[in-house]
């Protein structure tokens, strides 16, 4: 399965439109909104928006990436070929999850590198290192959502739905613009979304708090619900 995982990652890294879409957008938005529109903006805004865009990028790579790969391979019959090998559906799912987690790393690291190099974001060394696993954890519910979509829908539909969900969740959850500038009613909605609660883990860390506050309970609930949803769709399909 290790070899298959390596192939899965390498073939995804060859997918130029996917990379452009998942890396260029978050990096570009980050630089645009901190350098161009927010020139001279506060360092804490640069740091906060850095983790927001890193999470948005990781969500994109995770949610849209995994749903498209699973849906395409199921729709076009590659999974039938795999069914003739000793690889079990659960092993296939394990490979997809492992590859999806690892494939969020490039965009997370690039956005953070932009923060450090371009915007001069300076954080304690421990915080930098804590951000990566925290952002990974924050991405898992969206990868689970992508898995559920991939096992439920045909390829084009799955891509469309996951892109739409990515935008609704990332904008609605205050990753593009902070919820502080949202109208009251929208901020109320945002606080219920998994994307806001996922971002909150990192934002709290930047504020010098420990990441898991009361909002982490809502995050954990979303995590359990979406993992359950993914598991149900997976069992239903295989």
């Amino acid at each position, binding site marked *: 399965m*290790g070899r298959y995982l*390596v192939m899965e990652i390498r*073939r995804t890294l060859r997918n130029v439109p996917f990379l452009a879409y998942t890396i260029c957008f978050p990096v570009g938005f980050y630089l645009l909104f901190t350098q161009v529109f927010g020139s001279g903006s506060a360092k804490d805004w640069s740091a906060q928006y850095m983790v927001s865009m890193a999470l948005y990028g990781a969500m994109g790579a995770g949610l849209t990436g995994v749903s498209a790969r699973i849906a395409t391979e199921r729709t*076009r019959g*590659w999974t039938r070929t795999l069914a003739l090998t*000793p690889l079990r559906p659960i092993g296939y799912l394990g490979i997809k999850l492992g590859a999806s987690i690892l494939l969020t790393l490039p965009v997370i690291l690039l956005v953070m590198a932009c923060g450090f190099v371009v915007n001069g974001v300076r954080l304690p060394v421990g915080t930098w290192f804590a951000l990566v696993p925290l952002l990974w954890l924050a991405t898992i519910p969206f990868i689970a959502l992508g898995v559920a979509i991939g096992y439920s829908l045909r390829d084009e539909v799955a891509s469309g739905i996951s892109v739409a969900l990515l935008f609704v969740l990332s904008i609605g959850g205050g990753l593009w613009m902070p919820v502080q500038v949202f109208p009251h009613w929208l901020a109320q909605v945002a606080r219920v979304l998994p994307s806001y609660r996922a971002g909150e883990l990192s934002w709290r860390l930047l504020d010098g708090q420990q990441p898991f506050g009361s909002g982490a309970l809502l995050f954990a609930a979303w995590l359990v619900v979406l993992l359950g949803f993914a598991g149900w769709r997976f069992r239903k399909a295989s």
Partner: protein
Amino acid sequence: MTELKHPDAVSLRGIRKRYGAVTAVAGVDLTIGSGEVVALLGPNGAGKSTTVDIMLGLRAPDAGRAELFGTRPRAALDAGSVGAVLQTGELIPGARVGELLTAIAALQPHPLPIGQVAATAGVADLLTRRTDRLSGGQTQRVRFALALLGDPSLLVLDEPTAGLDVAARRDFWTSVRGFAAAGRTVLFSTHYLEEADETADRIVLIDQGRVVADGSTTAIRAMAAARNVRCTLPGADPVALADLPGAASVEVHGDAVLVRTTDSDATLRALVAGYPQARDFEVAAAALTDAFLALTRPDAPAEVA
């Protein structure tokens, strides 16, 4: 090749499968011994693909039992004893062919070396190519290579040359014959009589979900090489006419007699000698498609020795 004690590579017993109101497989019994090269021949929609899917454990039959080497299909696939090229299924996009072969070989319990498989399947010059940039024939050879990676004792091919041009088909069958020459078992489905004739030792004719004829390729070819002898014969007795030398089937409509024969000379001589009142003789080659249809017509099951 794994040493499997069980002599039968494939054993299907009373397989039935319905999709809603449509009966795809209506009771198929089939045993294939180790080392046989068997063609599953039938028109589109005959139930070949469903039979193959059930044989490989990809679909559950409504009734009946499928075994490969005396075990469940899943267990045989896990043991690497079975390789298959299915009718549908694109390659995973974006991978290099060599990478893909390495990844799939790593899943198999006793894989063959990639180089050997690549040479057998004719993909040695494609290893650095991307799977989404191959021609139809190249894709099919890669799929064949994937089926060989586990070093299978049984190879199952479901219409493997559908959509390929003549040259690609010829190359493909050359590779399959190379595999079979090592004493391994091959089962392939096709609707081309020529492919069955050139590659198989045994042909199983399937139509409307049933096995309608099962015999050596020579016997089936003789059926396919049939000629039609027609004449006018008042008061013809179909039972007596069926005893004519070479006669495979007899049709009588009023005075008109049609004898389908595998030896038109002998049939004609006996007819002239035995029935002086017969007239208006006509001998014509039965078209391959006619013979094929005669064999696969459900109301006229052919007995082939």
